[in-house]
Structure formats: C-alpha cells, structure tokens
C-alpha cells in the first residue's frame, strides 16, 4: 500500500497548528480563543498519529486519545470560567479582562 510520506502528514499538522496559533492571536472572543487552542491541540494529536503510523506503533493513537480527553476536560473547565466571566464583565472580549496588570 502506498502511503503518504511522513513529512506531508507533519506538514499538514504544522499548518493546522499555525492556523490555530494565528487565530488565538487575532481573535478577541474568549470562546474563539479556546476553540483555536483546541485546534492547536488537535494539530499536535494529528502529528502524533502521523508519527505513530510511521513507526507502526499504537503509541501515537494512544497519545491522541489522551489529548482528546484532556481537551475535553479543559474545555469543560474553560466554558465554566467563560460563563463566570460573562457574568462579571457582560462581554466575552478577552481584552476586557485586563483588570490585573503592572
């Protein structure tokens, strides 16, 4: 079976990662930032799967499942916090949450 070379897989993951990264930087809505971070995490997961497939090991996929689980946990806590913030600030603009500085 002809497989894609590993570099292209990693490249895809890298592009995904960069996209996520850029959107974290440019989005101001906290929910979007959270989503962008999730994209980055999934990009990392993708990279693991590519790597795992290169070495024909299950490790990469195991790792991906862990990442998924973790991301889920993170998102749940995150959403709870975002709810709180919305409660306090009446906005989801992350730039508004700058009461602590200096």
């Amino acid at each position, binding site marked *: 079976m002809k497989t894609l070379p590993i570099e292209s897989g990693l490249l895809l993951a890298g592009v995904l990662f960069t996209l996520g990264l850029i959107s974290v*930087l440019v989005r101001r809505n906290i929910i979007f930032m959270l989503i962008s971070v999730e994209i980055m995490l999934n990009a990392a997961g993708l990279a693991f799967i590519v790597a795992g497939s290169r070495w024909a090991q299950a490790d990469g996929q195991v790792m991906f499942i862990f990442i998924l689980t973790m991301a889920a946990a993170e998102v749940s806590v995150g959403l709870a916090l975002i709810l709180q913030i919305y409660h306090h600030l009446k906005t989801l603009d*992350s*730039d508004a949450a*700058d*009461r602590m*500085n200096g």
Partner: protein
Amino acid sequence: MLNSLWLIPTFPFLGALILVLVGSRLSRQVAARIGAGSVGLAALLTMAVGYDFLNSGVGAYQYTAWNWFDVAGLSTSFAFYLDPLSLIFIFVITFVGFLIHIYSVEFMKEDEGFARFFAYLNLFVCSMLILVLADNLVLLYLGWEGVGLCSYLLIGFWYSEAKNGYAARKAFIITRVGDTAMAIGLFMLFSIFHTLNIQDILTQAPQVWVAGTSMAVVIAFLLLGGAVGKSAQLPLQTWLPDAMAGPSPVSALIHAATMVTAGVYLITRMHTIYELAPLAQLWVGIIGAVTLLLAGCSALTQFDLKRVLAYSTISQIGYMFLAMGVGAWSSAVFHFMIHAFFKALLFLGAGAVIMALHHEHDMFRMGGLKNKLPVIYWTFLIGAASLAALPFVTAGFYSKDQILWLAWAGEKGNVWFFLAALTGAFITAIYTFRMVFITFFGKAKTQVSHVPGKRITIPLVVLSILSVFGGFIELPHTLGHFTLFSDFLSLLLPSVSLREGVESSEWILQGIAGLLALTGVYMAYVFYIRSPRISDEIKSSTYVLHQFWLQGWNVDALYNFLFVRPFVYISTLNKNDVIDKFYTMLVRATEFFNGVFVKTQSGILRWYVMGIVVGAILIITISLFVQP
C-alpha cells in the same frame, strides 16, 4: 638637679591640666596662682638646672621619660635633651613666660575665661618647652604642633567674635602648611638615617652626605618650610598680623617672644644639615632679607598699634633668618633672646596702653600718653630704642649689629644681604619711632580709663632692664670684645669665618648703622611731631603704595584668590557629591527598565500569548541557527 629636667615642662602641664579640669570652679586668685605659679616654678627650676648644667661641665644632658613608640626601627621616646642652645631657649621661655603670666593676672582679671586663659597659656609653655627640649624630631613635632594648637586657642580666645576665630583658623592652617613640609622632611630623614633622633642625625649627616648633596638640600628646604610657617616668614607670613586678635599677653609671649622663633630654633638645631646644603642656607638668608624689608615697609603704614609690632616681629625674625643664612648661628640666637626681651616688652606695653584706652587699637586715636602713663611710656621707649637699635646703650644695637656685620663680612655674606639689613635697620627706626611719637606724644584723643597696677608695671620694668643690659653679654671687637654668649654656644654652633680683608671695616659699618638708626628716629620726629603735614602729603601722594603696604603687599588677597577661594568653591560646588550622581543614575536606569517592562504586563491575554509565540520563535531560531 639635672635629672629634674623633666619637671620643667611638667609643671606648666600640670597647671594646665588642673585648670582645664577644675578651672571653672576655682576662684580667680587660685587660678592665677596655679597658672603663674607653675610657670614660676618652671623658671626657678630652669635657673637651678642651668646652674647645675654650667657647673657640671658636660656638653649635653639627656633624660628619657619613657619610650613613646618603637616600630620597625622607628624608635622614639619622650626624651629631653639639654645643651647650651636649649638652655637659652628654656630660659627665655620660662622667664619671659613667667613675667607675662604675672602681667596677665592683671590684664585678664575681668575676663570671664580667666582660668581658661591660664590653662591655655600653661599648655603653651609646656609645649614650647617640649619643642626646644625634644631629643628627637617626633617629639619636637609634638611640641611644634602643640604650640600651634595653643596659638590657635589663644588667638581665638575671645571666641564670640567670628573675626577672631577666623584669624585663629588662619594661623593654624597656614602654619600647618609649613608643618606638612616639615613632616615630609622627617619622613625623608627617617628613610635615610633610620632614626629621628636629632643628635644621631646630626652626627651621621656629615658621614652620609657630602656638602651640596641634593638630598640634603631637599630636606633642608622642607625643614625650612616648617620654619617659615611657624616663624611667619615669606611666603607664609600672612597669619601673624591677624593673630593680633588674641589678648596682648598672648601676642607678647607667643607671637613675639617664643613660638614664632621656633623656626629659628629648628634651623639652628639642624644647622649641620644646612651647612651640608649651601643652596638651602642661601635661601634661608634670602628669605630673611626679603621678609625683613617687606614686613618693615608694611609696618610703616599700619595704624593698629599691635599690627605695627606684628610686622616688626616678622621683620626682626627676618634678621634672624638672615643671620642663619650667613651661618651666624649664635648671632641669630642672640638676636632671638634680645628680641624676646624687647618685643615682649613692647607688646606688654602696647597691651597696657590698649587696656588703658578701653581696647582702642588705633594709634591715631591715642596720643599724649607720655604724662598720663609715665611708667609705660618710659619702658615702651626703652623697648622701642632697643628695637630701633639705637647705638651703644641698647641691647638691640649689639645683637643687630652683629648680624649686620656678619651679613657683610661673613664668608657666606654678601653686599646685598648687608644692604637689605641696613635698609631694614633704617626702616625699623622710622616705624618704631613713628609708633612711639603717635602713641605717646601729641594731643590726647582718648581718655585713659584704667591705670595699670604693679602686676603690669613690674614685668615691664624687668623687661626694660633686660632690653638694655642684656646686650652687654656679647660685645663686638670694636667695643670691648666681650663674647660670653657666643663662647657659651661655641661648642655647639660653629662660628663664622670672615672674608679676607674685611676686619678693619667693622667700625665703619657700625658707624653707618648707628647713624642710620638715629636718622630714622629723626625722620620720624620730623614727620610725626614737627610737621605732621609732610607725612599726610606723602601718604596721599603714594596712596596706592600705602594701601598696598597696609595690606601687607596684598599677599592675603593673592592667597585668597589662588588657594582659599578655589578650594571653597570646589568644595561648595561639590557639596552633594557628584560621585553619588553616578549611583543615582544606575538607579534611574533600572527604574527606566522597570517602566518599560511593566508595560509588557498589560493584563491583556493576547499580549501574553504573543509573548509566548515570540519566545517560541526565538528559541527555535536559536536552536536551528546556532548549531554546534
């Protein structure tokens, strides 16, 4: 009796100690007894010791009290050394000192710092005795600085006036300049001889050095620095006229009779070095000659009675320096002694006048005191005659004549020295009698408020006797050839060898000198008694010169401009310490960075994310491009 030598300085010291510690609780009478008595005891003891010394026939006697310090070969002790030279000095110090103490009892009787005054005066006598008795240069330096301290304390005795304090500080600081040179001289002496014992140095010096060695010259100049400071010679003479701010007995004792002649003592004591350093010795003479002229001119113009005497003192010490410059050591010492008598007399007399006239210092506001204060007038006149060196009858004639003669005839003498001395003698006569005439003749301008008592007159009388008869212990060839004084010192101090073919001219020179003195007196008479108009005309026609002389050749202004003002300016300018600015700058820089970095902590989440991204990019870039 010799071994009680140490008691001579100890008595005044104890007197001072008692007066300092409990003086304020003693009655004036007790304080006076302690103050004058301790010096009196010292004077008596000096007589006894001197008698013993003369009879014992030893050339010198040394007494070690204790070892002061002993470090790596620098061994000094509190040791006293008695030889003819120091004997003469301690005699003058204790004896004149005692007279002045007696005088002070009356002079100071209404002053609230009575005990304090005697404490200082006793301390001075003690320090001065240590100075002349010291067997090593460190101890001498102790006495040297000690008298400086007392001079400071006594000039500023009436401390509530800032002017007096200023004069006192000036005196101390200027003499300290000289002392510093002297201290360096001591360091050099130690590094060459590995000892600071005077006799050891004097015996070793001729073995170590040949005449004219540069090292000897340098050391001689450095010691000369100390001497000109203490003795108010050029270029450090400016403090002495101001020092007249002190009470008159102080001027008499410290600034005329004893302390200011410490320079003469030092150079005479170290004469071996000067003989090995002809250049330095020549300069001693030059300084003396120039100083005696400059100070004489200044004395001509003064109107403060004590300032006239102050400039006259500078001028007379100039004579002593001139004598030392031509190697006439014993003449210098002789003139010191006679000068101590008549100058103390003059100062005490002046003090009595000033006291009688309610602290009036200005001569032109005195006048006509001849009849009102007869004792003072006569004694003052005797002193003045001695100062002016009126021929044959005054001691001053004999002592000064010797210097004049040797300045001309001595091996190291020359015609310039002689001319300077001669001119000086003429000027001396003028300003002396100018002073006498203005003060005692003419109309009375201020009422006499206080007639001096016995305690003032007796010292004056005793001193005037000495000012007349003191001279007869040393008479020149031409007039009896009696050489008691120089014989006494001959073991210690070499005599001057004369140039060839000058012996016969001695009487001519004496004649000229005597005539000049008399002419001077006559001129003073013309200017200030017979036709005062002339003196006024001269004064107004030479106003600039007059002011210039009055201000002591404006040396004060020069020094202010050159040293004092720049120093104070720099010091004040930098009061807040410019170096501190550097550290403040460091702090400012850190605070600036703090300000910059704090801006990065904006509290905005995306900014923080950016930070991480930048960090990541940096790390990866570095990792990729900085390969080992």
